[in-house]
């Protein structure tokens, strides 16, 4: 699950976005630490956690940024979409309002992130099936029509959490591989590039360090 000095071949930056209270922080803690917190406190600003998984032969380190969902924080959080190669747009299946605004979240995302970003729509809280307000098929259709991956999860009972992250990371991986092949002759790198230590950050090259003086 990731020591400080693990070896990895790729770093993928992924952002978690969606309305306040849909369960972004718990999805992240379930994936990175296998934890669920009933009183997971409000996220103010942005935080991130990492976890490395194996995709084929490659170790992919996911750097997943959790963001505040409240509208007023968007001016701050959207700056962190830069360089993301994946995004999970999360809604709460028991609150239709959080699904209604998915389109706005997508717009926000495409305004600030790379066009090639892989996006997954995530309907969270399936453990509260009796309170469901968003039918699975409705959300799936929306995802299909908008070229998004789709999954329903429960961070509380772990359903599909692992699968959600693995799916999106694999998808990003494939995209990176394709891009690599396509760009093998040229130097332009849109989604990934190698860095000196053999790792590839998903975005740009790693800036040289700066401990000068």
């Amino acid at each position: 699950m990731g020591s400080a000095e693990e070896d990895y071949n790729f770093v993928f930056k992924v952002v978690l976005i969606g309305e306040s209270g849909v369960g972004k922080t718990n999805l992240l803690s379930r994936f990175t630490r296998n934890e669920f917190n009933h009183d997971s406190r409000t996220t103010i600003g942005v935080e991130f956690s990492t976890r490395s998984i194996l995709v084929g032969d490659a170790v992919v380190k996911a750097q997943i940024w959790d963001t505040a969902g409240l509208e007023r924080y968007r001016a701050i959080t959207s700056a962190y979409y830069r360089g993301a190669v994946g995004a999970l747009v999360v809604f709460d299946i028991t609150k239709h309002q959080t699904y209604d605004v998915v389109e706005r979240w997508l717009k926000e995302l495409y305004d600030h992130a790379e066009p090639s970003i892989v996006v997954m729509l995530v309907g969270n809280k399936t453990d509260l099936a009796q309170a469901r307000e968003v039918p699975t098929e409705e959300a799936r259709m929306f995802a299909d029509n908008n070229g998004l991956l789709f999954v329903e999860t429960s961070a509380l009972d772990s359903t599909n959490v692992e699968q959600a992250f693995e799916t999106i990371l694999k998808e990003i991986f494939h995209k990176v591989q394709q891009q690599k092949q396509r760009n093998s002759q040229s130097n332009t790198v849109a989604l990934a590039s190698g860095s000196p230590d053999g790792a590839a950050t998903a975005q740009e090259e790693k800036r040289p360090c700066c401990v000068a003086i």
Partner: protein
Amino acid sequence: MARRSPPRNGVGGHDFDSKKKRKVAEIYQALNSDPIDVATLRRMAISEGGLLTDEIRCKVWPKLLSVNTDDLPPLPGKELREDNKDYQQVLLDVRRSLRRFPPGMPDDQREGLQEELIDIILHVLKRNPQLHYYQGYHDIVVTFLLVVGDRLATALVEKLSTHHLRDFMDPTMDNTKHILNYLMPIIDQVNPKVHDFMQSAEVGTIFALSWLITWFGHVLSDFRHVVRLYDFFLACHPLMPIYFAAVIVLYREQEVLDCECDMASVHHLLSQIPQDLPYETLISRAGDLFVQFPPSELAREAAQQQAERTAASTFKDFELASVQQRPDTVLRRRFRERLRAEERTESILAKPRTNRLVKLAVMGLTVALGAAALAVVKSALEWAPKFELQIFP
């Protein structure tokens, strides 16, 4: 500066008791004098140990905020929650703030307090339609609720919201971002190396956002530390929390410099606030820094930070910056001297940083906190209302 020194929190038993007794006596004397000696109360709130007990806080906090305890606003009725645009969000945030309540508290008692917390927040928002709720506001309000109870908390929070917290409660985050812009210039004055490292990493200042807008209530797990800081901030200039944030970063100098120089690593390191900070030492340092580099001196640099990022709202920033220039004669003189010095050097890069560092090292902790306190506290309440006028001309 920013060398780790042993915490001063754990002063030895007997000596501490007698010191504490003396302080309590001094506080009550200030409370009982006519008129009430608010300057002394401010000094007590800042100096070592702060206001010591919640019983004293109940009496002194209102004085620090000029709140008349004989004329408290009425408690709200049931209609408060109906048709309230903020209710759902407040409910959501309060429900998941369990960790802000004392660990051993029985569930029903905690639930009762959570209901009160919701009411206080909605009540203040309703009475002040110009104020906008933000996530983290509940972290501030719960601190007051737990220390002084719902009735008094409502009055104190209302005053605080229209003064110290006013900028955080705008419809947008522009003014909050502006205040965060003071962080890097403060760090630069004390330790250019840390400043430059952070600039190269492009870490930004968002790691300090929750510290600033919750007065550290969101990130510190020990309630005693939270109230100690609230004593300090209530007695000081509204920008003091950003000085305290800078002091924490500076205190972690070595960790920062050892960190990988990229945005994610530095952001991650700084976001995780150590829980065992030497609070008394850091409070004292923050006070010293405020005196040496008052906001008026940093205003231009802070505004510049903004300008570098976006041209928009720059004019407003300058306007705000100029309002913050309220130095007393000493500070004004110092400001002029610095201006002259800068004219001589003609270059920001050639800023006489070394001198400043030496000066700081010499003054360091030897600056009597009393002196710092006096300079710091003068402008706390006079400052905000004028500030507000400028935002809403």
